[in-house]
């Protein structure tokens, strides 16, 4: 049968089929394989002599064979199918992603004698896609930096355990997102996630908020109110800004963490708390312990697993990824068609220090979205403190001179900011003479604040 097939295809066609990297096979009207090229052997792991004469579904073993066979569809309708995705199972039991295209096979007289199918191994593409997508995103967290990737790697294990987690990181680094990610990967994911900002409430209110109260506990307590511990039953309780709570409340919290028991305000009955605690703070708790404002025993109770979220300025390689992430999100939310940022906007975004971390970057982009509906985000749409001024007309923007001027202005502005607007110190930092700096400031039209920075630097030095 194989010889017949080879003869019917002709030597030239055969040589072509043998040399291409896509798998190609043909079937007769009974769906039995009549030809099978070399790439098909490699992808499926089945030798040609084993494949010929067998039902194509048992040779290819594709996910679409049973319910939605592409070849059957083509033979029935006469319409070819191009690049339909599926997976096959090879002889080793591996799922191999493929794309399938089909066509009708006709003889010299134009009669339909079967079908032809080509398939392409997409394993590599799929692997790269996963590498790009999967590893840099967990929940709503996006990062490709080494420090964050380490956290991503251990996050499923952290989530799977029931241990208390302490998340430390500056404001805006995504502490709550991390807590939510831990909750969503844990066995408690179907149960509630309750977040409490301990810094936002006065002490007494926080106590009743956390533990709840019973009717008559205080004036105005007309009926029982369950606390956040009760609301988060079987789920996760996220205590944000844990470093801000008072010593008295620290003791009560310590008891809950130790014994998993608590009493609502004014209540006599002890309740059991089946709650996983995730705490977060932007403060350095070790320093607070040294100062005596945070209890050491509570710290060790909370610090079973510690996650340190690095600030954005220490993982600037994430900025382009985050910018893409936020642009895609705002496009989705606001129904806009922003493509990306212009190159000088990206340069400015990369140069910024982000004291407000990822939240600040998000706000900068949200502001830009107010002004920009489609195309690229331009410099004029950035806030002024980031250097968002349209100082060059668009026709000049792409010339070397304009680019040089923009870069110079940016460097001078940053040197001035770093040196408290002390011109002499900035000139030293830039390696310029002070009069050259003055000339450039004037020529580039850089605005300076009223104070010149000299007194500030002197006072700093005298200290």
């Amino acid at each position, binding site marked *: 049968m194989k010889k017949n097939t080879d003869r019917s295809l002709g030597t030239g066609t055969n040589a072509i089929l043998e040399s291409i990297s896509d798998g190609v096979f043909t079937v007769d009207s009974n769906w039995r394989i009549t030809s099978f090229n070399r790439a098909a052997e490699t992808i499926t792991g089945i*030798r040609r002599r084993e494949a010929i004469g067998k039902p194509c579904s048992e040779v290819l073993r594709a996910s679409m064979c049973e319910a939605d066979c592409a070849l059957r569809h083509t033979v029935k309708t006469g319409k070819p199918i191009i690049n339909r995705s599926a997976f096959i199972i090879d002889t080793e039991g*591996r799922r191999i992603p493929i794309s399938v295209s089909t066509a009708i096979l006709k003889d010299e007289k134009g009669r339909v004698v079967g079908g032809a199918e080509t398939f392409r191994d997409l394993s590599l593409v799929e692997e790269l896609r996963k590498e790009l997508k999967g590893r840099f995103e967990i929940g709503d967290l996006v990062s490709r930096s080494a420090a964050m990737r380490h956290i991503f790697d251990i996050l499923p294990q952290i989530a799977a355990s029931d241990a208390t987690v302490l998340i430390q990181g500056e404001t805006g680094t995504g502490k709550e997102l991390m807590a939510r990610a831990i909750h969503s990967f844990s066995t408690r994911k179907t149960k509630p996630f309750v977040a409490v900002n301990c810094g936002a409430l006065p002490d007494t209110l926080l106590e009743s908020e956390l533990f709840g109260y019973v009717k008559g506990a205080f004036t105005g307590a007309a009926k029982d109110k369950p606390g956040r511990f009760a609301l988060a039953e079987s789920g996760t309780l996220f205590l944000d800004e844990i470093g801000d709570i008072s010593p008295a409340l620290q003791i009560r919290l310590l008891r809950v963490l130790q014994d998993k028991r608590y009493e609502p305000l004014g209540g006599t009955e002890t309740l059991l708390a089946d709650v996983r605690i995730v705490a977060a703070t932007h403060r350095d708790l070790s320093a607070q312990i040294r100062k005596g404002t945070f209890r050491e025993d509570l710290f060790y109770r909370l610090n079973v697993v510690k996650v340190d979220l690095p600030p954005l300025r220490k993982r600037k390689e994430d900025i382009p990824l985050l910018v893409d992430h936020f642009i895609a999100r705002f496009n989705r939310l606001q129904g806009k068609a922003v493509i990306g940022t212009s190159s000088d906007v990206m340069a400015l975004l990369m140069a910024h220090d982000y004291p407000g971390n990822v939240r600040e970057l998000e706000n900068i982009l949200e502001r830009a979205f107010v002004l920009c509906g489609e195309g690229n985000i331009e410099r004029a749409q950035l806030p002024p403190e980031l250097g968002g001024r349209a100082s060059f007309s668009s026709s000049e923007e792409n010339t070397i001179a304009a680019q040089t001027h923009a870069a110079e202005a940016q460097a001078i502005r940053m040197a001035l900011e770093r040196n408290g607007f002390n011109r002499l110190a900035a000139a030293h930092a830039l390696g310029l003479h002070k009069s050259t700096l003055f000339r450039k400031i004037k020529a580039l039209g850089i605005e300076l604040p009223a104070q010149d920075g000299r007194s500030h630097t002197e006072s700093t030095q005298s200290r």
Partner: protein
Amino acid sequence: MPAPPVSGYPGVRYTLLRTRKSIWHVSCYVSYREMEGHTYMKLALATWNGRISPVFDVARQVMMLDVEDDRVVARHEETLPGTEPQAQVGRLATLAPQTLICGAISDPLAGLLVAKGIQVISFISGTVEEVLTAHLSGTLLKPAFAMPGCCGRGGRFRGSGAGHGRGACFGGRRLVM
């Protein structure tokens, strides 16, 4: 915590379910026929158009057979979701066969089934009746029922050695248990 050991008598089958941390629910099933020395087996065959379904991962039909002393005493068709591996395993586990005979199956899915205590005889091809007869007569592991490329008839083309993963290759296909 591993399941506590439960010893039994012929024909008495125990199932252990961990309901809470240290509480075990023990259910027992007594087959008088087995106590009398008969062998009993619940068999599942993934089918499609009268043949063994080519890919179990997406199979939507399964034939459930009650076999007593190598004789089929009852058979009926059941459906499978044919979507996610977890759903496929969950559905088959509720049907509770001791053995599944199927076509190609991805390794992780076979592992999940084995973890549920289901023996998997995979990479089998042929008509349902031929395969069933061969299984009952103990000749299913002949190369004639192997899917193309799965050992037998010149051996496996990709990979080396007779076995792969948890499975072992018996002339025709893999037996995973």
